[in-house]
């Protein structure tokens, strides 16, 4: 199947401007979403990442039109999803974080009921087949496993052949095989032009699926862009343990080095050169580096760094220029290399 790039970037399906959501009022109120801006183009798969309580689901609910924002605007397919829900709902599909299907109906009966409430549906059998539940059609929902229930939820979201699909943590509770299958399905839907907005805990999922992503913290978007853009400028990481006898001091490295007892963590923007310098030094001195591990910058690294940066600021604000990620609470010394 051909992969279609987001055809026209200006053809945005979801437009969110300065979005706010407050629960309660006054000093007891809670400001869950604090000025979020997002744009998702047609056919794009956009992932919303964030720590627990970052405001992902609150933001999703506003974009889905389940609640009215306290401030700012949302446009989905050119309409206000809350006030003009009749225009928007038939064209979107929603999967909530937690399914809500009566336990005493079978999967097929659930599908039939949903089909009766949805415009332009695909056959129920087809929807169940898409998520691999066709053989469980006559099993009551309460007897389905947690993962099967998630997939039923996904099938219901797909029932109306939505142009825009909202998935709130779609793969939570799935075993690795089912997760891979859901990823395949989502990728296929995207390839057919479905716009997807999803939230996830799994950074791997975002890395695997997303055209673009945003990382939220404290109700704000801290950083956004393609995976490459978000990772760009984030350091690679080398970690190892020095031998117990010690005595040798580390070589000068063009990197940031953190020592915690025998454990050493090096963060570098030039992984190959730093690794070469380090291994050369170890070889010359006959030192065995224990638990040696070297990895390129990943979304996970970037995410953790951004989360801890954001957590160190109160109130949370946009992240400072990257490259200063710091593992907290470890002794640190900067050894600017002169060797090269």
């Amino acid at each position, binding site marked *: 199947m051909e992969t279609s790039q987001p055809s026209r970037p200006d053809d945005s399906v979801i437009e969110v401007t300065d979005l706010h959501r407050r629960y309660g009022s006054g000093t007891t109120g809670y400001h869950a979403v604090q000025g979020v801006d997002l744009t998702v183009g047609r056919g794009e798969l956009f992932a919303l990442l964030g720590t627990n309580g970052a405001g992902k689901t609150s933001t999703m609910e506003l974009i889905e039109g389940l609640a009215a924002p306290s401030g700012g605007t949302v446009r989905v397919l050119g309409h206000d999803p809350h006030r003009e829900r009749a225009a928007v*709902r038939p064209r979107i599909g*929603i999967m909530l974080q937690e399914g809500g299907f009566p336990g005493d109906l079978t999967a097929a009966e659930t599908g039939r009921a949903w*089909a*009766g*409430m*949805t415009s332009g549906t695909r056959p129920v059998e087809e929807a169940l087949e898409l998520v691999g539940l066709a053989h469980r059609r006559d099993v009551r929902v309460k007897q389905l496993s947690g993962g099967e229930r998630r997939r039923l939820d996904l099938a219901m979201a797909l029932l109306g052949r939505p142009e825009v699909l909202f998935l709130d943590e779609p793969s939570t509770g799935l075993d690795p095989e089912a997760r891979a*299958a859901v990823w395949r399905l989502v990728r296929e839907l995207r390839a057919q032009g479905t716009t997807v907005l999803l939230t996830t805990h799994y950074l791997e999922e975002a890395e695997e699926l997303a055209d673009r992503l945003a990382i939220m913290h404290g109700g704000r978007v801290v950083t956004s862009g393609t995976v490459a853009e978000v990772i760009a400028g984030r350091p690679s990481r080398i970690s190892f343990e020095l031998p117990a006898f010690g005595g040798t001091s580390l070589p000068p490295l063009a990197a940031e080095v953190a020592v915690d007892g025998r454990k050493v963590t090096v963060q570098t923007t030039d992984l190959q050169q730093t690794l070469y310098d380090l291994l050369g030094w170890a070889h010359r001195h006959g030192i065995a580096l224990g638990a040696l591990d070297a990895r390129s910058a990943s979304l996970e690294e970037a995410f953790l760094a951004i989360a801890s940066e954001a957590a160190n600021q109160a109130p949370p604000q946009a992240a400072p220029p990257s490259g200063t990620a710091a593992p907290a609470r470890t002794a640190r010394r900067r050894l600017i290399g002169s060797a090269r």
Partner: protein
Amino acid sequence: MTTAVPTATGPTTAGPRSTTARRLLALGRAEATLLLRNRTALFTALLLPLFLLFTLRGTLTQQAEDHPGLDVDSLLVYGSVGMMLGFVVYYNLTAAYVARRGELVLKRLRTGEARDIEIMLGTAVPSLVLALLMAAVIGIGGSVALHLAVPVNPLLMLAGLVLILATMIAMAALSSSFTKTVESAGITTMPIMLVIQLGSGLFIPLEVMPDRVADVCRLLPTTPAYQLIRVGWFGTDGSSAATGFAGSWGTAAPHLVTAAVWLGLAVWGAVRYFRWEPRR
């Protein structure tokens, strides 16, 4: 999950546009299936009202001893019909709303195309059908068996029927907001159930009550709609002599007003307090 996603232009045809009628039907059908599979709910819906009928018969016979003018046959059939309409809809539906809210079904339904009012009414479909069926069987069967007169003003009966059912739905929605679990619905519905049974003129006709008490009862939420049914059926609410079709409108007018006011209040309360998802 090996199948490819069929495209919109693929061999399968898209279903029709969703309409209010289709949505109510789909929801009602699902809800009916659930009712049939839930032994407790089914038992409460079918057998408890029948048990109440026997109590009703006993109470009315007893009252007739002190009030010789009382038309026990008519009141028995009328009271039974009233109990069916009130009890089956109000109690069942309160439990149904609580159960669906607890399972997050209401929240999930709101993500679809159905509007809030459609979700409320769709869930009520089986309770309404069941109540109307039972009321019809008892009303028609009882009238024929006991040789009751033909209703004086069917229009008023219809108005009373619609008002009582609508009020019951709204009050069920309201009661469900104050009910955490299906099990506790028995307790939270008690006040209204007592009002329906004792204060609406069903078990104890208003005319055998002391005047003061009767006046208060006439103002209770469910009384006026029931009185409309009674006036439409027999041409009198018991406070004066029976009239014909034309005269029944005059007798019914005040009940129409109070019934409408109560319905308005119940709907307002339901909209104001109804909760779509459990409190966290």
